């Protein structure tokens, strides 16, 4: 059996044996990603409408930590799966490739934690992809109705609390039970695992596609999408309050309706920013940021435009989460209030020496470093700037994100 992926596995095994600390770090990285996904999942009441913050950067760092490059992975999988498979975006994506490699390592070395964690992280992305494709604008109230009243007990959605438990407690063990032995014998079967993972999750959304004779389009006869669309058409929803009352008089109807508004706001604002690559900014905003930061108008414009990139989805999502948390936003009206920008300046831009501020700094630094490399073509320049200049540059990022937040929420 000749397999290039197996050769990569041999390299990993040698490296890990030479440096046990490296293996520990990889395991820690995987566990951290899973822990983050859990935290997001627990903190949300979106149910099966939930979408994970994809750990793209963390997985990219894993590739570097393993001493590999995306090219190494691509060549190995291309050799094993054939160049035809590589025409598919999913098959040639280093995100999936490195996780499959780690899963293979876990199978061969009988390290179940590495194996299962790698597979689970891989499934997170597949879940996000399928969910976005079929239920891009998913209403959690409709979904709750569908899961509670329309799914029978055999349906997986009715048996698990949300996507995290579905992926971890159902898909990971079933996929491993079926394919672990096959993969152990032949690493080329990793392709089968990837395709099966995709197929099985896809199947939950749409099943038994048939051509509708009237419309000529393919329509699903089963799956959650069909049930969801039916419930939506009939206006069937369930509202579940999750925020407790703030005032002396107990929770009002308004408090209930704004329950979990923050998640919705963050998601819609992040989607708006990352999915609109050709946004232009008003001159007034750029001049104001220029006045505050003394950064040239040209640079501000370039940084703001560079934000509109799907690669930065996770980071922008987290930045928004901190901004809304620091400004104590509970509902959309808070963002449109005239005092909101003042609160951003006071509690976000000028805030120092607290955990949120430090996290925000890190996130903005990640974005700026990427933008300096990819957009401004000034690699290493960001790190050379003094801490005080980095503060000015971070102000541009926060101002841009807050502008977009208000634009989408207060339009």
């Amino acid at each position, binding site marked *: 059996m000749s397999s290039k992926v197996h050769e990569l596995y041999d390299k990993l095994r040698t490296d890990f044996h030479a440096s046990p600390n490296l293996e520990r770090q990889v395991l820690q990285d995987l566990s951290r990603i899973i822990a983050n996904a859990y935290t997001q999942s627990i903190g949300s009441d979106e149910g099966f409408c939930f979408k994970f913050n994809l750990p793209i950067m963390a997985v990219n760092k894993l590739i570097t930590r393993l001493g590999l490059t995306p090219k190494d992975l691509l060549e190995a999988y291309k050799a094993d799966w054939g160049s035809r498979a590589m025409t598919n975006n999913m098959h040639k994506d280093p995100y999936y490739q490195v996780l499959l490699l780690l899963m293979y390592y876990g199978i061969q070395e009988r390290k179940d934690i590495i194996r299962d964690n790698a597979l689970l992280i891989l499934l997170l992305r597949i879940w996000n992809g399928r969910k976005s494709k079929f239920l891009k604008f998913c209403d959690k109230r409709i979904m709750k109705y569908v899961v509670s009243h329309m799914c029978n007990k055999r349906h997986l959605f009715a048996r698990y609390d949300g996507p995290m438990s579905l992926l971890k407690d159902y898909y990971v063990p079933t996929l491993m039970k079926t394919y672990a032995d096959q993969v152990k014998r032949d690493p080329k079967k990793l392709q089968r695992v990837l395709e099966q993972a995709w197929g099985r999750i896809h199947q939950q959304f749409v099943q038994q596609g048939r051509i509708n004779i009237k419309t000529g389009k393919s329509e699903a006869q089963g799956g959650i999408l069909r049930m969801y669309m039916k419930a939506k058409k009939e206006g069937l929803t369930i509202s579940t309050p999750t925020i407790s009352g703030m005032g002396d008089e107990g929770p009002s109807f308004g408090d209930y309706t704004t329950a979990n508004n923050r998640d919705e706001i963050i998601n819609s604002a992040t989607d708006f920013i990352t999915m609109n690559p050709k946004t232009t900014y008003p001159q007034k905003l750029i001049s104001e940021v*220029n006045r505050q930061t*003394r*950064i*040239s108008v040209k*640079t501000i414009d370039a940084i703001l435009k560079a934000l509109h990139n799907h690669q930065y989805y996770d980071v922008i999502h987290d930045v928004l989460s901190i901004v809304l948390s620091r400004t104590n936003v509970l509902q959309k009206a808070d963002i449109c209030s005239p005092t909101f920008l003042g609160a951003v300046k006071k509690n976000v831009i000028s805030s120092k020496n607290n955990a949120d501020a430090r996290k925000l700094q890190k996130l903005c630094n990640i974005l700026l470093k990427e933008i300096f490399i990819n957009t*401004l073509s*000034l690699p290493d*320049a960001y790190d*050379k*700037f*003094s*801490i*005080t*200049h980095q*503060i*000015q*540059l971070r102000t541009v990022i926060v101002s841009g994100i807050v502008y977009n937040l208000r634009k989408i929420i207060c339009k």
Partner: protein
Amino acid sequence: MDMFNQQEEQLMVESKETLSKIVQAKKMKSETELQEVSKNIARLDRGKYFFEDYDQVAYEGKVRVDTLYYDQLLQKLEEGMLPNVQKAIISLYTTINNIYEFVNIKPDIYGKGINVDILNDSIETSRRKLSKVIYEYLDRNFYSLTASQRKEKYFDEHKDLTKTLVNEGADLEDAMIFSVKTCVMENIVRNIAFPFSAWSRVKFLCEDHDYGKIFDQHDLLALVETFEKKINSLAKIVATCV
């Protein structure tokens, strides 16, 4: 003759070898020096962590302490000139604030051991402390130097003013004394506004290529130029009272 030619040839070869050795040694030396310099440059963080960001409260404290400095420097100023000088100082400090804000560093106070705490001292104590700072500066840069040393040290800076004064009909010796005084006062006024580290930072940012790519460097240059003009005018006034 042959022997002579042989000797000459050998001498030529030897001298060529020696020359090439010297050239190589020089090259090696300059290479190692260059390597060392480049290593040192790589080690520099260009003051990345040195400065704190701009702080309006710190600026207000600085203005109050600097006002005490000017009280000392302008003790002998004629009362009639006071309103105009005050206007000039206010205008100067607007520019100074703009520069600190522009480069985003915390406004700094001049003088070893001098900080805003001096404002809590008695008038006598604060005057004594500030006079000491001013005196030490003047002693180091003016009084301890002989007349020729002063002229030599400040030649580049004072020559234009001396020329102007002479053209206006002043005595050469008087013109030179006044010009040197003006140079010294200009330097102390600059130091009060921007102590060494802050001024070095401002100058560095005026010339830094990377900074210019991202920030409005030309606006900073314009501000610094305005500042230089203003301190030049103020220094002439201060020089008349010292």
